[in-house]
């Protein structure tokens, strides 16, 4: 009897360990996480439309049916990132996520400079380079220091009613997600 009791107790302890392991490991091994979904959507360094307002189906769950969403994957080991979009919309917000879908930075049209969507994301090495020789563009941009190299940018823009459809589409499809060149002082030897 006592042995059966111990067997059950050990079973329960194992259950607790298994449970903890699963919960802690899911973020690393989830195959349907947001990054995996965006990978199917399109190439990195360009915005793809994730959802348009009123669409019945969307790639990501829990999206707001009043919003249009575009996403762009980047890799800072290749180059710093520059994101730009133009258009006068009543509300938009931008957020940078790391590879695991965790939010690193976010801002909206009111917290941006002149209500323009222009940001430059860099890692710490690139930040040092930018500090040394600040490019002229960097003055107008929101400079984001990213603690992760791989990640994605998400733009969410409000469509108050269908009359805004064209403007919203233009805003999202013309949004730029580009490699941003920091001017190096040294010349590239491979040129000659």
């Amino acid at each position, binding site marked *: 009897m006592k042995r059966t009791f111990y067997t059950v107790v050990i079973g329960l*302890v194992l*259950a607790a360990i298994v449970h903890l392991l*699963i919960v802690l490991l*899911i973020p690393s091994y989830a195959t*349907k996480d947001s990054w995996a979904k965006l990978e199917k959507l399109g190439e990195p360094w360009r915005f793809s439309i994730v959802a348009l307002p009123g669409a*019945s*189906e969307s790639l990501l769950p829990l999206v707001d049916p009043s919003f249009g969403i575009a996403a762009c994957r980047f890799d800072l080991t290749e180059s710093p990132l520059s994101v730009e979009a133009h258009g006068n919309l009543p509300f938009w917000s931008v957020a940078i996520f790391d590879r695991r*879908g965790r939010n690193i930075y976010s801002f909206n049209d009111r917290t941006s400079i002149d209500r323009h969507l222009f940001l430059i994301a860099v890692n710490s090495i690139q930040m040092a380079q930018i500090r040394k020789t600040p490019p002229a563009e960097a003055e107008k941009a929101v400079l984001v220091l990213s603690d992760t190299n791989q990640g994605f940018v998400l733009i969410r823009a409000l469509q108050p009613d269908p009359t805004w459809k064209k403007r919203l589409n233009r805003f999202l499809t013309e949004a730029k997600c580009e490699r941003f060149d920091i001017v190096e002082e040294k010349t590239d030897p491979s040129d000659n």
Partner: protein
Amino acid sequence: MRVFFEILTVLVIGLGLGGVLSLYSIQNIHGFGALQIGQWTAWPQAGSQNADPYTKAKVAAAGEVPLGASEGIVFHAKTDKTGKRLLLECNYHVSGRTPPARLWTISIHNDDGTTVGKNLSLYSKLLSQTLVRQQDGRFTITVSPEASPGNWLRTRGNGVYQLILRLYDSPLTSTRGIVDPEMPEISLLGCPS
């Protein structure tokens, strides 16, 4: 032989219970890191790096992209104020106020987060800016299958659903929060018999 059965028992309890418990905890609303106001629940930390492990697992497993702190906050409600699940065929009033925000939206979703009702784009969601309000800023939204005067959020079909209210650019997340935030109350008006 006895030892073999004991090991088997340990494994069945351990793997079985551990697995079921994990599945349950990430698929359902859980209290870790949750902000509860009336019938509404939000996970203000959902998108951040210091979220609790359960919230992180839930976000990763669902593949959702949470709102960042200066974007907004998402509230879910699955029950009315008496604790009964919300049903598509029933009529409800959502009335009161929301915490301050530049704008907010309310929409109807399935439990897994997909939107309910195709081609209902005009009625299956409402925007704070187009809402009819009383003089003190309070509002009442009727959530029902049948058309209703005033603010109407249309449902169609049968079964359970969740209401999602998203506050955008709200001091609830962008600053240190606000004291005693207020959320609208969900009351059942009746179900067709």
